């Protein structure tokens, strides 16, 4: 059969290269965000590391949906082909990857050369020899997606048995993606850009003084006469001329070791002589009502509270007052003059109990519901 050689189509496009760059950037950014977020205990970065590739993958899937639908709609073309050369790449399995170089001769188009890889069973490998005729199938718009039909229909089997084909001149289309060095370099560049972008945009989170373990230290703003508020991810401290409050973030409690003492001290920094009229402690909230300015004799020093006894008093109130399923507790320290009186109130599903103690944390009386 006399055949005419056709020119192989080009495959590398600027769009494909840009997509490679973008994919690299997303991989770099998401990996950096996730690992950095884990190391610095920054939830937003961890979420970014998970959401970014998911959204990118979804958008890419939706974006390529029409193209894939178009490709699926195209019926594959069947043709005869002659094996120019073949080389078994090698494998320990029974199916061996083989690199084929074929001259494909479609009935209604110029012949062309193509190189591709296909696994062939070891037992069937001797069937494929140079100059041998095979039946192939490929999408007309993507001839490099070639495959040898191992079970042709009887009509094509008969044609293949009688056919004789000439070689078409090269170069061959290649089955493997041929983005080459440029594509690989662009993907690598994107990876570096993505990594750099995350490191730059989130440098405060990743390398700032609050990164890692330092994140748990409260940010404190105190003022003896003016209201000011500041917050970190875990603690919010507010100090005004009348009150001071410390609110802990999720997962923390005033009953944690040293937490109440630190919170009280954070409110009294720079106000050594400040006295409190009332201190109210709840699971994640501390409120101190300061004594009015100019009334030096009123109130007590909040730092004198028996911090080491508070957890035990609360536990005792929860367990000994006969409250069913205690849900919340509150410790109130009142002291207009001298030592404060402590009162632990526990609220359950059906009632409230009160435990009273002196300024040293010694239990004075118990009142169940």
């Amino acid at each position, binding site marked *: 059969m006399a055949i005419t050689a056709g020119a192989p189509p080009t495959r590398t496009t600027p769009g494909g290269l840009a997509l490679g760059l973008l994919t690299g950037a997303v991989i770099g950014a998401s990996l950096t965000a996730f690992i950095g977020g884990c190391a610095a205990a920054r939830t937003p970065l961890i979420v970014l590391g998970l959401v970014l590739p998911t959204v990118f993958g979804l958008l890419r899937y939706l974006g390529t949906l029409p193209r894939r639908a178009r490709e699926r709609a195209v019926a594959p073309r069947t043709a005869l082909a002659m094996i120019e050369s073949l080389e078994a790449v090698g494998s320990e399995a029974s199916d061996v990857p083989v690199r084929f170089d074929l001259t494909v001769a479609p009935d209604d188009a110029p012949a062309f050369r193509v190189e591709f890889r296909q696994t062939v069973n070891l*037992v069937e490998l001797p069937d494929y020899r140079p100059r041998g005729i095979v039946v192939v*199938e490929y999408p007309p718009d993507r001839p490099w997606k070639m495959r040898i*039909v191992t*079970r042709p*229909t009887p*009509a094509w089997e008969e044609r293949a048995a009688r056919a004789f084909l000439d070689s078409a001149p090269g170069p061959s289309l290649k089955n493997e993606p041929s983005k080459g060095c440029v594509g690989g370099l662009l993907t690598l560049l994107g990876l570096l850009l993505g990594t750099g972008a995350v490191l730059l945009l989130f440098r405060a989170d990743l390398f700032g003084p609050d990164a890692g373990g330092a994140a748990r230290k409260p940010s404190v703003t105190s003022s003896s006469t003016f209201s000011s508020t500041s917050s970190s991810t875990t603690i919010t401290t507010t100090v005004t001329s009348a009150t001071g409050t410390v609110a802990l973030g999720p997962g923390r409690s005033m009953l944690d070791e040293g937490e109440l003492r630190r919170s009280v001290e954070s409110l009294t920094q720079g106000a050594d002589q400040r006295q409190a009229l009332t201190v109210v402690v709840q699971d994640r909230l501390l409120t101190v009502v300061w004594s009015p300015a100019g009334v030096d004799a009123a109130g007590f020093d909040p730092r004198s509270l028996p911090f080491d006894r508070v957890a035990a008093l609360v536990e005792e109130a929860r367990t000994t007052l006969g409250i069913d399923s205690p849900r919340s507790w509150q410790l109130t320290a009142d002291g207009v003059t001298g030592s404060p009186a402590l009162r632990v109130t526990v609220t359950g599903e059906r009632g409230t109990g009160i435990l009273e103690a002196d300024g040293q944390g010694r239990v004075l009386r118990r009142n169940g519901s």
Partner: protein
Amino acid sequence: MDWHGALVLWCAVWGVAALIWFGMSLAGVTGAQRTVRLTGRIERVRPPRHGGSRAGGISVVVSYRDPASGQDVTVTNDGEHGQMITAAWEGREIGVSHPRGRPHAYRLSNAPGPRTRGLGRAGCAAFLVYAGLVALTAIDRGWPWALIGSGGPAAVLGAVQLPRAVRDRNGRLARLSAMEAVPGRVVAVLRDVSVDQDDGHARTTITPVLSFTTRAGTVVTAHCTANLPDPAGAYGREVTVHYTAADPAEFTVDRAAGERSEKWDVILHVLAVAVFAAVAVAGAVLLRV
């Protein structure tokens, strides 16, 4: 977001997905409903090559009538084209299906299948909603609800299916006892070796291929994956094949083993129902403690 919120979101997302897929099924636009289902006939069975691969099943040439053009179409089971044909004979009816407008994407199946409503995705989404609700209840009201929610419905479903399972078992036993016996021969032993890329461990799958001729004169070629001793060395071995006259694809070389297997099927079914019921009862008891 805590666990409660995450589970509510889970249920909401899958609930919406289930509604959409149910709606698509009602509108008749699911993939299964848009699939053209036809009946094909095996025109030729190509003999398997000893030592070859079982991938792709028994090589067959199938023809069917294209309803659009009215012409006969001939195809083969080359490449990714549906189910693996494991029993073949000339004249056997098999299922051919393809998406509407894309006959080249045909798929073969061992038997012509009925039209379906494409409710697989919707059912899967509904199951995920149910699983989320069980988890939500377990978190809100106590973990024994997880036992009740998982064991209860499974036990009820199993119990409802039990009479049908017994009927099917009895039917299969009746067919086993009525099977006809003919001589057969192992015409090939297929050997597939795959290598684990991580540890280099090689896994070999041996598939003997039987050929036998029914009393009606039909030459059947079939994979025989059970009850054949020493399958690797079975090439050329003569065996007695028991087959169902109505469907030679239903055959065995060891009828007694088939009967034992059928008895165990029902016992395992009953055991599974008992285990699920016990799980549900344990959950109910723990709730009352």
